[in-house]
């Protein structure tokens, strides 16, 4: 579905990722783990078109998408949930959800998806007329996911959805991702620092360090890997917040 080959990208003259290759197949949840500054977000932003790659190729559903504008990539069904949630804080919850369906015109489909979002996140329905900026962190993350679902994505790019959330909410978000995959059949590329939790819902994972992929494999193999355990999972199996 998505195939990234030998991508290098960065800001100015500094390369944040260097020769990275990853694949995502339909129906999979793939996780990118790594410390701060490893280049995970940069990779995600390069896929969504926010950053132009300096080298390499990105192919999505047999089309080359490196160098394509973000709004065009969004139109092709690749929807990113930006880091820090990317809530339109001065707009209401309803307006945020409407914006998610910005590129769609099928009224019935939109209404149906809105209904589904409310079913997943009843809290959002309660807060419909409220300014999105006044929501709690967890609610904002629900809104960010809800808004992405309103776009009818074929590939969801999630950038640290658990960032800054209380443990109980982290679990809820991870649970939601699991549900999105199992119940709704979404394909998800997930960036997480919360490696332990993320590996429980992912099929496969890539470990990034200083702009490169240093390890890849299925989730179980990564969890059993000693280096990964030491660096990202901690002794007790709890995640390490770097």
């Amino acid at each position, binding site marked *: 579905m998505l195939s990234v080959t030998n991508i290098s990208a960065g800001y100015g003259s500094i390369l944040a990722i260097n020769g990275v290759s990853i694949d995502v197949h339909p129906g999979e949840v793939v996780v990118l783990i790594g410390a701060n500054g490893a280049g995970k977000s940069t990779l995600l932003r390069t896929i*969504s078109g*926010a950053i132009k790659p300096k080298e390499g190729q990105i192919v999505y559903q047999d089309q080359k998408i490196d160098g394509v*504008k*973000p*709004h065009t990539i*969004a*139109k092709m069904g690749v*929807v*990113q949930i*930006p880091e820090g949630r*990317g*809530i*339109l*804080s*001065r*707009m*209401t919850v*309803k*307006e945020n959800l*409407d*914006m*998610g369906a*910005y*590129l769609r015109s099928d009224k019935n489909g939109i209404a149906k998806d809105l209904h589904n979002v409310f079913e997943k996140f009843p809290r959002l*329905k*309660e*807060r*419909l*007329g*409220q*300014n999105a900026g006044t929501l709690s962190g967890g609610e904002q993350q629900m809104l960010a996911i809800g*808004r992405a679902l309103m*776009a009818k994505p074929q590939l969801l790019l999630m950038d640290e959805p658990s960032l800054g959330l209380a443990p109980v909410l982290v679990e809820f978000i991870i649970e939601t991702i699991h549900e999105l995959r199992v119940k709704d059949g979404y394909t998800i590329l997930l960036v997480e620092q919360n490696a332990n939790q993320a590996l429980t819902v992912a099929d496969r994972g890539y470990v990034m360090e200083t702009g490169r992929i240093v390890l890849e494999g299925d989730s179980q193999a990564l969890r059993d890997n000693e280096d990964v355990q030491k660096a990202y999972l901690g002794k007790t199996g709890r995640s390490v917040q770097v």
Partner: protein
Amino acid sequence: MDYLLSVITIAGINIIMALSFYLPFMTGQISIGQAGFMSIGAYASAICTAKFGLPYVPAVLIGGMCAAIVGFILGIPALRIKGIYLLLLTLGFGEIVRVVFINVDYIGAAAGFPGIPYQEHTLLYAYGTVLIFIVLFNRLRKSRMGRALQAVGSDEDTAEVIGVNITAVKLIAFSSGAFIAGIGGGIFAHYQEYVEPLMFDVMHSVEFLVFTIFGGIQIFWGPIFGAFALTLIPEFLRFIQEWRMELYGALLILMMIVRPQGFISLDSVKTLENAFWRLFGKNTAAVLSPGQTEGK
């Protein structure tokens, strides 16, 4: 009475100018070059009527179009920069336009452009234009394009990944703002019968910004109210006339402290709308106030 009417007419033109500032502002673009666009509209329409004998309405529209075209061309480099740098670019633009007009003999250079046909119904034309813009802005507010403007103003990066073509949206907003300013300039020129480059210096652009910040930045009623109030108040406080800019400054500081969202906020408009529909017995469900949770 004549005096009062002339003040109200100028207030109408100022409302148009405040709206011209507000439209690009909605997408986060702060322009203090609106007086430059105004002067382009003023001179272009004046040339049309005084030199070529064109009727008033098409001349004013041509003035608006000329400003829009310049706005479009300026908008392309302006898209790449934000905040203080955009401010400087538009400031520079306004001054360049002024200096160019000072040096073109065809339109009177520094001495100004006299003999522009007087439009005696300027009051009606100015407020007719304001009315048209109110209708358009109100429709925009509820439209897909309006949401896109708002989203770009709220968070560009997010708007982009949602699928908003932010380049197009910002360019449209910027050149439409220039168009509105050009219309304001055309109406102004045919009211004054005479224009000179000095009338369009940067302080006027700053005034349009002040109108907007004072009136409120959340909804287009803000700049409308701000322009109207701040044009009329100093006129009725003649003794304070010389201190007008100081009054602006003091008001702005006061507003920032007491009511940073401006005089008219989104909430106040929604409250008024609800009260209006309740009074006239229409179903209020269409106009949600914040806190209400029912869908449309």
